[in-house]
């Protein structure tokens, strides 16, 4: 009888250990982590195609941002702490076949080109918002990373301050962008909390 109790106790102990281990976030190496974040299967990338235009929205976890920064005076840990309470995205805009630079596509005059450029530089920020849970957030940072017509896509980097007390996104998020230049309507990129809360961690040796 005592043996039976001991077996049951051991089995339970093993089960608890296994479930505790499985609940822990995975740790990935640098390459694996980048691939994980950039893979559409993991719910951190959203892509919308409207006629011949493609809008790809990439959610960037803090570790992913730190990975791409070089020459920072802050340590990776300090920089990660700095990014706490914020959510960052890249919005990529390109022609579906990548055959032309978006700023130049279909323009008939220099004025038209400049109007587009100025819009992305100064005004597009007003057409972007983030629904976090039930709240609507406005950008705290916006950068238009133009490729100066060298690449077939344009990139917008946009950041939001999460509600007080939230270190990293744990609610459903939806980035909303109203495209006023290419007249493709409103683009919505959804990110489920299910995916946001199970983002693996980067191995410490790389941070």
């Amino acid at each position, binding site marked *: 009888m005592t043996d039976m109790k001991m077996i049951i106790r051991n089995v339970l102990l093993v089960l608890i250990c296994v479930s505790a281990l499985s609940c822990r976030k995975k740790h990935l190496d640098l390459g694996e982590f980048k691939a994980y974040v950039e893979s559409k299967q993991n719910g951190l990338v*959203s*892509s*919308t*195609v*409207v*006629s011949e235009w493609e809008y790809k929205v990439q959610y960037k976890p803090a570790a992913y941002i730190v990975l791409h920064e070089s020459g920072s005076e802050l340590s990776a840990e300090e920089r990660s702490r700095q990014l706490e309470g914020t959510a960052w995205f890249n919005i990529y805009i390109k022609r579906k076949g990548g055959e032309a630079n978006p700023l130049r596509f279909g323009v008939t005059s220099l004025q038209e080109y400049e109007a587009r450029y100025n819009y992305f530089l100064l005004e597009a920020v007003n057409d972007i918002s983030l629904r976090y849970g039930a709240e609507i957030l406005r950008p705290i940072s916006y950068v238009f990373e133009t490729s100066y017509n060298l690449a077939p896509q344009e990139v917008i980097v946009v950041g939001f301050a999460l509600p007080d007390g939230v270190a990293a996104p744990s609610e459903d998020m*939806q980035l909303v962008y*109203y495209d006023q230049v290419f*007249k*493709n*309507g*409103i683009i*919505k*990129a*959804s990110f489920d909390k299910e995916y946001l809360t199970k983002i693996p961690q980067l191995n410490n040796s790389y941070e």
Partner: protein
Amino acid sequence: MFIKRYQQFLYPLILCILTGIALISLLHHQQRKLAVVDAVRLFNEYKMKLDLEIIERGKLSAYEKQLDSIEASFKVVVNSDAEEARKLATKYQAMKGNMEQAYAAGNQTINEQVWKRLNPLVEQYGKEQKLHVIVGANGMGSVLYNDDYYDLTDDLINFVNDRYENDN
């Protein structure tokens, strides 16, 4: 020898097979699927249209506030300063004209952008549902009658709204 023995069964059997093939082919052609969709409801209940309306309404309300402000100023000076009242009346008319232009431009924007998004989605829906024709009823008499069996309006509205909220 074998054929001769079963000849009396063979011909009816071949006839049966041929009839079967003909029936299957006929049924296949009869399965060409048709759907009727209320195009006005589809347009009006598409969430992007509702979102765009809110944005355009916001732009118009800025004009409305300015018009109200000019109107209030006009009431103050109308009996005391004829020159100022005339200037304000001109300004009011110009502002009203701008507002009407903005309203028309907003409507055009909504129409163009909504159909730009809806058309490929309707096509995608048709392919996914293996439909051969989707008829858009618009209340102008193009569809005189259809029963619920062919009406897929609700289903299509759910489809396009789901695509809008969850990436395209």
